[in-house]
């Protein structure tokens, strides 16, 4: 069947398998080993590029959807790899627990979050999801399930967190949830008229639990990098209005909307993107500085529009997310934004975040510094622009997020990930290079 990631680019042919249970998945990997065939795990298909498309066969965690146990006193949840983040929130938020780290969508699976070591708006403060994963079950090339943690099979543990499924099939994950008092978030909006202002604001508010900046990627000159910085804290009982205190976890989402068809490519052009960004910025300037929001519109605004990726039409889109070390931040971000503007290309969404120290995962993306994510429709011009941006990222000592990547070159990867050689030889030693292979790993010779 033809599969793609969330960006709908590339679309590739692969065989597809959906084992019924962790036991069936384990037996399946064992059989593959005997057949000298290879596969890659796939969760919800929310990686943007080719990370979860098997070069031969793709193994879906769709049916590994059961929770295994939960300790109310500690907040430790053990669940199968295909359990989705929104199911965890639906189940445990009414009991006062929230996932410790959430990416921009709640449709991801536990296994996918571990494999990509996803980060959220709190990376600068709490680190990535890896910091909260107590242990995981990995079915390696020999078809034997092993439990990996900080004390057991540590090498596989750290190579798997961020390892994009290339060390084996993750069948279950034990995750530490965080206690919260309500299902709301107190949001503060800081208006930053230029890049220096937003970087200064990120530093000023570095103790805020959640912080993320939306950048107007179309602004130029003195306004280059103008942003809205959104800060957030889980609301306490005192924060929420009296009327909500009776039921601090009583919020229920309304019905979402769906984008039922691919939009024609003309809809998102530099003009409409510029207009949208200007409008969004103006709205942010007018908005009250502080607001109380339910969790869903705060953490997952795009989840309200089912299939928003169709905004970019059939050709799909590319997300370019990179991180650069803090010291190089101002120069690198300025150069990237200027290059984007100079090419008269426009990114519909641009998101900037402060990142804390890396999470020890061998192939983990985070690095202490700044991460910027940009969206572009797929076109020859944009592909060559991204090559240009890669060169710039490499020059400043940065790297690209594999969960978003569909096109970076081997050289870019090699320049950015110092543990790459160790990861490659570990894969060889474990036999994982022959048993687990994705379009991404073939492209980058991971």
């Amino acid at each position, binding site marked *: 069947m033809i599969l793609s990631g969330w960006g709908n680019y590339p679309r590739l042919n692969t065989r597809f398998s959906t084992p*019924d249970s962790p036991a069936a998945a384990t037996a399946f990997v064992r059989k593959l080993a005997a057949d000298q065939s290879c596969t890659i795990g796939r969760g919800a298909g929310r990686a943007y590029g080719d990370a979860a498309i098997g070069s031969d066969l793709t193994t879906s965690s769709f049916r590994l959807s059961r929770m295994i146990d939960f300790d109310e006193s500690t907040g430790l949840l053990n669940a199968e790899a295909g359990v989705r983040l929104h199911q965890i929130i639906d189940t445990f938020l009414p009991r006062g627990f929230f996932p410790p780290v959430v990416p921009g969508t709640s449709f991801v699976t536990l296994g996918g979050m571990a494999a990509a070591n996803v980060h959220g708006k709190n990376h600068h403060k709490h680190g990535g999801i890896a910091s909260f994963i107590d242990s995981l079950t990995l079915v390696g090339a020999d078809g034997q399930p092993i439990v990996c943690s900080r004390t057991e099979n540590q090498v596989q543990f750290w190579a798997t967190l961020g390892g994009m499924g290339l060390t084996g099939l993750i069948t279950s994950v034990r995750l530490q949830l965080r206690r919260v008092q309500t299902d709301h978030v107190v949001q503060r909006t800081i208006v930053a008229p230029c890049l220096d202002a937003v970087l200064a604001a990120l530093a000023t508010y570095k103790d805020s639990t959640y912080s993320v900046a939306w950048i107007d990627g179309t602004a130029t000159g003195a306004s280059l990098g103008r942003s809205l910085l959104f800060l957030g804290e889980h609301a306490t009982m005192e924060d929420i209005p009296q009327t909500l205190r009776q039921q601090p976890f009583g919020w229920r989402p309304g019905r979402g909307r769906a984008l039922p068809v691919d939009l024609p490519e003309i809809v998102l052009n530099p003009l409409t993107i510029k207009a949208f960004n200007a409008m969004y910025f103006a709205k942010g300037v007018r908005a009250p500085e502080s607001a109380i929001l339910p969790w869903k519109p705060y953490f997952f605004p795009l989840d309200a529009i089912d299939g928003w990726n169709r905004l970019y039409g059939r050709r799909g889109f590319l997300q370019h997310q990179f991180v650069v070390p803090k010291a190089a931040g101002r120069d690198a971000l300025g150069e990237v934004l200027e290059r984007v503007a100079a090419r008269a290309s426009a990114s519909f969404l641009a998101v900037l975040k402060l990142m804390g120290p890396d999470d020890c995962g061998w192939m983990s993306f985070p690095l202490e510094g700044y991460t910027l994510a940009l969206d572009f429709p797929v076109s020859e011009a944009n592909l060559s622009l991204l090559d240009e941006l890669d060169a710039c990222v490499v020059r400043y000592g940065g790297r690209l997020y594999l969960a978003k990547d569909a096109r970076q070159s081997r050289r870019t990867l090699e320049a950015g990930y110092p543990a790459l050689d160790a990861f490659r030889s570990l894969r060889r030693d474990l036999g994982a290079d022959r048993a687990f292979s994705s379009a991404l790993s073939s492209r980058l010779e991971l």
Partner: protein
Amino acid sequence: MTIPLPTLLVLGGTSDIGMAIADSFAQQGWTIILAVRDLASGRRNSADLEIRRQVPVRAVAFDIIDRERHRAFLDELGELPDAVVCVVGLLGEQVRAQVDAEHASLIMRTNYEMPAIFLGLVGERMRARKSGLIVGVSSVAGERGRRSNYVYGSAKAGFTAFLSGLRAALRDDGVRVVTVKPGFVATQMTAGLALPKPVTAQPEEVARAVQRVARGGPTVIYVRPVWRLIMIIIRLLPEPIFSRMKS
């Protein structure tokens, strides 16, 4: 004094439809018993339900084909459940069933004989208690024998007829019997078949439909309303035309 929560017994508790029905009752606060052939898979489901819905859930080993065990199984449950849902079924392979009598017999016993006998037993006990709900998941395949699955279809026809009679027999004793004919459902059983999307239900839709008629309303339901229309047409087709149809 606390009012005890009602109990649901699901026969076929590892099937997608069985799990979806169990989940919808658990959400209403029911205690759940999953009767399963493979206890390991059953326990996987019971743990999941218990965590998500915070109601007591247990898995018990039971193979409906083992008729000798029917009575003992019910006795060992302790209290007779308030509701019993049977989603046991085996699609089997039609072509093989035509030449392999053992396979044909297994399909017939699994879809008709054994569920009917077991639900009959449950019905007698509920009659004595003067209350209860029995839900049998049958199939539209039982409305007319098609060349592609008439062994399965004929067994489901028997099951549908049995449920109809059971309903009549128990109606004055406070026992409600519901027949569900779900049409196509996207499950493990149909994985790999090319089912037309507009007439294919998700297991959760079946569960919602069952939930809707648990306390009142119609006693014979299709999950997607379009199936009522489809089946009227299929029943009306003259035999010479119907028998020429390829599927």
